[in-house]
């Protein structure tokens, strides 16, 4: 029973109604910083990606390079700068792949329903019946380590989750009256998907993209850390941690720095997603008891 206009009406943009907070600004800046560095990194890095600059290995911060040297005497700072590109690019590509597969299949299953939905859902369920890391290890174990295998594997592993989310979204939005109205009008599946369902699923999908991106970084760096991801001499943050763990006892930060970089990236992304979703959370009844 509503005949009053909502004072703050949700507008067309998914970003409407968001207020900037300090956390959002800081998290956004960190992401922007890494993103810029990924673009221009090679031009500003003091040394080459695999260039050995010193005979001292595991030089501490301030000696050798600005941030010290790694187990082969390479410049940690330069490798970090090169590494952001590898790390972010791989994560982005895998996330895009997972969204391309997951969203398409998920929405298709929700709209077409019937046998298509049943078959795809069963297959996805079977894949999800495995811990994702295990699934990736089996695939890599069979096909070996190469960038292509890595990207496709992680993309596949991530896409199962994206499928689940998109399918649920498709079902939720698909039963709304305005979609029914479009169906009753005689609109085709493509129109219903692109004009009715997708625009109304954007906000959760954007949030999901952020979370999957974070997850992808964690997953890829985990594999690299196990020696099963990106291979030397390429610079990748996860790989750098693996290479330099031994230096931890020699007072070197060559392992901790890339790990901290990964953390800064993923924490910022999570904070941003959290901020993006914040609108929906209001007070609870419990708080009202104290007032």
């Amino acid at each position, binding site marked *: 029973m509503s*005949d009053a206009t*909502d004072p*703050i*009406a949700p507008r067309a943009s998914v970003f409407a109604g968001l207020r900037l907070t300090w956390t959002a600004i800081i998290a956004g800046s960190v992401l922007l910083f890494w993103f810029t560095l990924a673009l221009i990194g090679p031009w500003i890095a003091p040394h080459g990606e695999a260039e050995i600059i010193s005979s001292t290995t595991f030089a501490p911060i301030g000696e050798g390079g600005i941030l010290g040297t790694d187990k082969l005497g390479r410049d940690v700072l330069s490798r970090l700068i090169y590494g952001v590109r590898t790390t972010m690019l791989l994560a982005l590509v895998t996330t895009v792949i997972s969204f391309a597969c997951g969203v398409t299949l998920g929405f298709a299953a929700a709209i077409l329903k019937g046998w298509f939905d049943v078959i795809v859902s069963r297959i996805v369920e079977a894949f999800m019946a495995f811990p994702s890391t295990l699934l990736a290890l089996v695939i890599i174990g069979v096909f070996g380590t190469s960038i292509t295998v890595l990207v496709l594997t992680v993309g596949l592993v991530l896409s199962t989750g994206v499928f689940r989310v998109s399918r649920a979204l498709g079902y939720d939005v698909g039963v709304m009256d305005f979609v*029914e109205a479009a*169906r009753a009008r005689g609109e085709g599946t493509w129109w219903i998907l692109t004009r009715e369902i997708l625009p109304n699923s954007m906000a959760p999908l954007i949030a999901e993209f952020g979370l999957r991106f974070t997850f992808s970084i964690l997953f890829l760096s985990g594999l690299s850390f196990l020696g099963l991801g990106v291979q030397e001499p390429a610079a990748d943050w996860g790989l750098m941690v693996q290479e330099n763990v031994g230096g931890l006892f020699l007072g070197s930060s060559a392992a901790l720095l890339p790990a901290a970089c990964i953390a800064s990236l993923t924490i910022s992304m999570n904070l941003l997603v959290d901020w993006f979703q914040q609108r929906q959370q209001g007070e*609870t009844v419990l708080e*009202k008891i104290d007032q």
Partner: protein
Amino acid sequence: MSDILSIRNLRVEGRPPGGAYVPIVKDVSLSVRKGEVLALIGESGSGKSTISLAAMGFARPGCRIAGGEVWLNGYDIMKLSPRERHALRGDAVSYVAQSAAASFNPALRIGRQVIEAPLWHGAGDAATLTAQATELYRKLDLPNPESVGHRFPHQVSGGQLQRLMAAMAMSCGPDLLILDEPTTALDVTTQIEVLKAFKDIIREQGTAAIYVTHDLAVVAQVADRILVLKDGEMVEEGTTDAILHNPQHDYTRKLMAAVRPAPHLVDHVAARDADVPVLSVQNVTAGYGTVTILSDVSMEVPRASVVGVIGESGCGKSTLARVVAGLTPAREGRIELNGKQVEAELDARPREALRDCQMVFQMADTALNPRQRIRDILGRPLQFYHGMTGRKQADRVAELLDLVDLPASFASRYPAELSGGQKQRVNLARALAADPRIILCDEVTSALDTVVAAGVIELLKSLRDRLGVAYMFISHDLSTVASFADEVVVLYAGRVVEKGPSKAVFQAPWHPYTHLLLASVPEMRQGWLEGVADTAEARAASTGSVQIGAKGCPFANRCAKVITGTCETVAPPVRDLPGGLTIACHLPPEALPA
């Protein structure tokens, strides 16, 4: 001074998510004496619910009490600490919510929830309180008072659950009882027993009560005094008698005017003769999965006429509209549009068939895509059915908006920038954009306030006269249907029990169910409740609940005139009576209620 509750200059503010606080209750004062029932009435957004909660010193999440005094039993509870104030709830004052189904915790047994408040506030031990609760169940006329407390909420019917909530509220022996639209979610035939139970228990315990509702007829039955609210401000206050018969304020008069007279008191339009019906539904059976919702339903809608489909929740009236539109394909039976049979499946229908039959949904806001402007929402069917684009389309959109009495400037707005009534007009305009022969109206006014709904009905009438469009008008509100339908179909548990011209349906003889339905529509006459609640029919109806898929007559278990041995097992014969009336009942015509 015997005021149990006295509220002075109450101000409550609310905050939309992410927004700033705006006043929603402005400077309201009221008082309730011992044993008195004060009704707060108003439309949505009038702040009536918010005020009733403020009487407990409580504000919903997103709201806050910004000022004023709330005196309960001589103490200003707003001056107490939050802890002391909280201790009064469920002890000195208790609450009955709109939906019992949602307000009972599904994971706990009913009995435990009923005695929880007094047990917590130390009013007695579990055994004593359970015995008292059983006594309350008995007074509330609940079946199996001894064992109902052991059940879980999902094991009990909606009407019984609502009465159990009254028991839950009364179990602590409150000084003040707050009832927040306690019968709004119920069907009319269930409402009577609940209303009666509430009224009796309040009278018997001598509790002061605040009764929140938008329904004037209900107010007439239970309230001693009425406070009329609008937009969070007091409009008028007086005794029930004075407000109902001698309203002083314009707004109150407007509210009263929007209330339609009881269905059988209306001057019915005479049915028109027509050649080929626009819509003909023949022996349709439909459902979801293994459940059958509609069985063997037949009806017709003549050209440019209004056919009302009435029945209570779950009777299948919305499914009927969906079947006609093809959204839920019929399992059996024929559907004809303009004399031509159409496929049950939506995808198999030609575009002209789709264009001829348009649908308007109940929830005005969910029927409009929130991410499209009104111009796109209305423009799409123009392009889709008529290939209209550009300038021509824009002109037609303006025309359509004008047709539903909305300014042309609304074209550039988003749905969220419109009120509920305006949204429903846009929904109507979207249907009209197709130039349909028939519009399926599924409870189009049920979610709107009375005054707004009356406006939409007037619009529907004038469109029918101007454009010659026919309506299948689905509603649970008999008065609305009676006010403008040419013909009426009464559905019960997925079957047609009675149909014919309005004049014939709303006058004797009736099918026993139609009779019960008509008798249950509250009248704005004090004392009506007592007269109707004690009839044999009302008592018979309250003993059973709707059963779907019955072998014989589905109404047999609630019918006062049941022929035992026949009605439960044999499907009733469909009898044609004079005046074009059709009734499905075992009773011979002369034995039907008259």
